[in-house]
C-alpha cells in the first residue's frame, strides 16, 4: 500500500533494542559551555551524589580506584553535579579553558 525505503524504516512505535552502552549517534557534548571537573580529589568522599543526580548518567564510580569518572561525550553542562556535590570537590569551569574543549555549533548533535 505504501513503500518505505529501507534506509527510512523505523520499528513500530519506535521501540528499539537498547544499545546498553553509549549511543555514538547521539553525542551531546557540544551543548556544553561549562563543564564540571574534580577540583579537589582529596575532598571527594564517594558519596555518589553526582552519580545519582546526573540526568544523563555521565558520572560512574570506578570502585577499584575509588574515584568518580566523568563521561565527556554526553555531559550537557547542566552542572547539577556541582550543586549536589556534598564535599564541594566538584567545580565548574569554562569549556574553552580546557585543551580539546568542545565548541558549540553547526548542528545539534
Amino acid at each position, binding site marked *: 500500500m505504501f513503500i518505505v525505503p529501507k534506509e527510512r*524504516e523505523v520499528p513500530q512505535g519506535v521501540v528499539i533494542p537498547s544499545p546498553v552502552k553509549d549511543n555514538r549517534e547521539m553525542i551531546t557534548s557540544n551543548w556544553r559551555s561549562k563543564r564540571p571537573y574534580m577540583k579537589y580529589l582529596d575532598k571527594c568522599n564517594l558519596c555518589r551524589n553526582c552519580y545519582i543526580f546526573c540526568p544523563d548518567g555521565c558520572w560512574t564510580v570506578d570502585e577499584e580506584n575509588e574515584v568518580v569518572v566523568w563521561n565527556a561525550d554526553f555531559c550537557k553542562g547542566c552542572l547539577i553535579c556541582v550543586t549536589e556535590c556534598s564535599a564541594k570537590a566538584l567545580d565548574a569551569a569554562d569549556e574553552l579553558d580546557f585543551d580539546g574543549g568542545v565548541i558549540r555549533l553547526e548542528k545539534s548533535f
Partner: protein
Amino acid sequence: MAKEFTYSGCAASAQACKMAKVEVICSYPIRPYTAIMMELAKMVVNGELDAEFVHGEGEHAQFSVVLGASAAGARALTGSAGVGVTYAMELYSPIAGGRYPVQAAIANRALDPPGDFGSEHTDIMSVRDQGWIMGWAETPQEVFDNTLINYRVGEDPEVMLPQFVCQDGYFVSHIPGKVSVPEQSQVDEFLPPYRPHNPLNPKAPFIHGPQIKPNQGPVIDLQRAVAHLNTPKVIRQALDEYNQIMGRNYSPFLDEYRTGDAEMVFFILGGHARTCRFAVDALRKKGVKIGMVKIRFVRPWPTEDLQECLSKFKAVGVVETSTSYGGAMKGGILLHEVRASLYDLPERPLTTSFMAGLGGEVVSLQAFYYMAEVLTKAIEANKINKYVQWIGFEPDWHEFVEAGG
C-alpha cells in the same frame, strides 16, 4: 449462561473492565466518569479484581501512568471527562504514536465555560485526530460491550492503538439500564491476553520513545495512519465474533433504525439516539418517512459504509452534540465528516445539521420534530437554507413552537 443486571453506564463499564481483567488502573476524580473508578476501587479492595490501582495527581499523570504500564506489558485502564480530557492533551499523541493500546473510559461532559456537569461531546471531539480509536455507546449494555470490543480491537497486532470508549455523562453514565453480562469463559474466549510488542524488561532492554531524527518523523506518522487503515477490517472481524459468542446483533459501524423506506434520517451518536428512536416512532405514526442512523465509531470514520448507507436517502439531518467554531460548516464537527464522505457520490442527499445536546441539555422529542420539519421542507424545495440550525434559537424554531409543534 449470561445473567441480566441493572447497571448504570459507569457500573457497566467497571464490570466489563473487571471481566477484561485489567491489570493497571489509574484514576483521578472528575464527574461524571468518577463512578467507574469508584466501582473498580471497590472491586480491587474486595479482592474481586487483581489489579494495581494507582491514584494519579491529575489527568496528565493518569495518562502517563497507563502509557508506562502498557509499555511494561499490562492491560491498562484510565478515564476522564470534560476538562480532565483536555488537561491530559500532551499524552494522546505519545500513547497513540508509541502504539500502546490503553483504554480510556470517558463519560462526556461539557467543557468550561460554564463549568457544567452535563453531557456534550466537544471534550473528546477536540482530541479526535491524535490516532485513538473512538466510539460512543447509547445504553449501559453498549458501554459494557464496547469496553470488551475496544480492548480486543486495540490490542490486535495489526492495530495496536489506544481507545476512547465514550458514554454520555449522566444520560448513559448515571441512568441504569438492563445489562446482560456473559460468563467469564465467554469473555476469555473473545478477549485473549494482551501481547505487547517488546515490553520493558531489564533482561532484554528496549528503549521506548527515543529521540529520533527528522527523517524518521514522517515514517512514524505513516505507521499510525496505516494502523487506522487496518482498523475497520479488525473491527468487523471482532464484531462478528462478539455477536456470535455473546448472542448480540451489532453492526460494526452504522446502526440503522426504521430506514427501510425512509426518505430522510437523523444522523446521530451516543445516548440521545435513545430519544431519537421514540421520535422516529412518533413521526412514523404521523406518516413522516423518517429513520435514524447511529454511528458507533467516529475514529476510524467509516467513509465507505456511510456512502453506501446515506446515499439511499433524500435528506440527512446531522445531530451535532459538539461544537466547531469558525469551521467550514459554520457549526458542528460531524457535518464536516458527513459531507466530505458524500462528496464523490454521483447522487448526494441534502445534508444539514442541528446544534443540539450541548451543555448537558436534553435533545427533546420536540427538537426532533422540528428537525423533521426542516428536513421535510428541504426535500420539498430540493435545497437546504442553512448548514446549521441552533435548536431553541432559530426564528423558524419559535414559529414551530408557537404553532404547537
